[in-house]
């Protein structure tokens, strides 16, 4: 699988990452090499094989629906990079002139 620089940009946009300069060529080459390794799977005949999705032996583990508070307001805000006394502070999301 050939990975183009445009493909790297497209994936980076989806993953909310940015690769510039030499890093972009490096990740492009790495992806190409790793995918080449992964393409070996095409040798395995998987006709009619159901994909294996869940590894747990459980289905529907149910519990009583009881309301309880697991963390406090203060705990929730403890690790915020920016906050005031009640809320998370984030950079402006809506452009008021827009």
């Amino acid at each position, binding site marked *: 699988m050939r990975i183009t620089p445009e493909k*790297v940009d497209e*994936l*980076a946009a*989806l*993953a*909310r*990452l*940015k*690769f510039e300069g030499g890093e972009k060529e490096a*990740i492009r080459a*790495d*992806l190409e*090499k*790793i*995918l080449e*390794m*992964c*393409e*070996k*799977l*095409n*040798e*395995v005949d*998987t006709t009619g*094989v*159901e*994909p*294996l*999705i*869940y*590894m*747990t*032996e*459980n289905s529907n*583990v149910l*519990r009583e629906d009881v309301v309880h508070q*697991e*963390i406090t307001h203060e*705990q*929730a805000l*403890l*690790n*915020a*990079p*920016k906050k005031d006394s009640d809320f*998370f502070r*984030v*950079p*402006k*999301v809506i*452009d008021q002139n827009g």
Partner: protein
Amino acid sequence: MKDHTRISEIRADLESGVVTCAELVEGYLDRIDAQPELNAFLEVWADEAREQARRVDSKVKSGQAGRLAGVVIALKDVLAYEGHKVSASSKILEGFTSIYTGTAVQRLLDEDAILIGRTNCDEFAMGASNENSAYGVVLNAADKSRVPGGSSGGSAVAVQAGLCHASLGTDTGGSIRQPAAFTGLVGMKPTYGLVSRWGLLAYASSFDQIGPITKSVEDNALILEIMAGPDANDSTVSQRPKPHYEVKSADRKFRFGIMQEAVEHPGLDPFIRDSVYKLADQLGADGHEVGFFHFPLLDYMVPAYYILTTAEASSNLSRYSGLMYGYRSPDAHDLESTYIYSRTQGFGQEVKRRIMLGTFVLSSDYYDAYYKKGQQVRRIIRQKTEEILGQFDAILLPTTSTPAFRLGEKSKDPVAMYLADLFTVQANLAGNPAISIPWNSTPEGLPTGMQLMCNHFEEQKLYELAKTLEKYK
């Protein structure tokens, strides 16, 4: 300081008054101070460990001490412990403090374990050498020019160098067993669903398991038994009752299966290959059944593993957004730039590589060709593994294809590094329990490990087999 090899010895010495928890803790703290170059710990909780030691000492005196009294344990830096930092060895979680304690850790505390600190690892548990940590490499105490293995490298070296008695690691594709093999320790990857992952920073949720790294099989079984069992906070945990393990070497004869493709693999170190053949001969001579089986899927395991784990990682790690916790870039000026710059500056190279690969295999154009294909191959691998374990009690194989490699030896080539997982990913792909036990030393003095794998939830048999193999070392 006396080196206890078993928890039962610590217990006996505590009860007879030969040693106190306080003395044990001081001994470990001295050693940690004496060997900072190993870089096994990211943080040492010295004062707290001393305080806990005093509490447990008084419980010992009053005869109320739990089963892990005096057992000094280190936690891999991916496990939540309330009021303590946890960072997954990543800059993106620098300064993050856990607001609750995960189930596995809480169960250790409930039995009076003393937690001494958090250990270095590959960032978000992604790596096989501990070279992907944002906080520097960990050195193998057997040879400081070599890696300790990964991703639980710090947890392994902490026990290897006598900086604590036991540690917790996590194993997604070999991250407990491979470092245990590289450092001469017992490392257990339990059955998927045996131990709750509540409070574990997720990497690949259909693979991750928490397990112990110890000096002995007995200690490993005790710590696992304490952590195992149902948990209301993790619905992927099996609802089977909490297990109890009896560790003794068995008189009965077992059937061992050896994978032809593994022992004949061109990448396998000849010394390790000879060790497997020698063990097979000895087991056969003692009346155990040893059979060789074919597993033509060996070369497909690492590719399937990387497709599926990177897909899950790209999804799990989308939570690191720079908004509610963790690192936020100073370049963030709107929503989109908060995401992009916080993640780009906060994650290390290998983590970004895996997120990108995972994003690729999940993208609509390639989903069927890669992700779905990986899931189909996973089913075939699990079926074949089950078939083999229908014929044998256990699969016997080396833990790693080589002893510990040199620092920097594989870090430039991701594919070469990924192949370090060749013999360990099967257990994670199929969900089976597998243990690595210290085996022998190469002529250069590097430890090697021998690996056993059993059917799901056969940890009891696995420990019994591990114990049985000890006499052939």
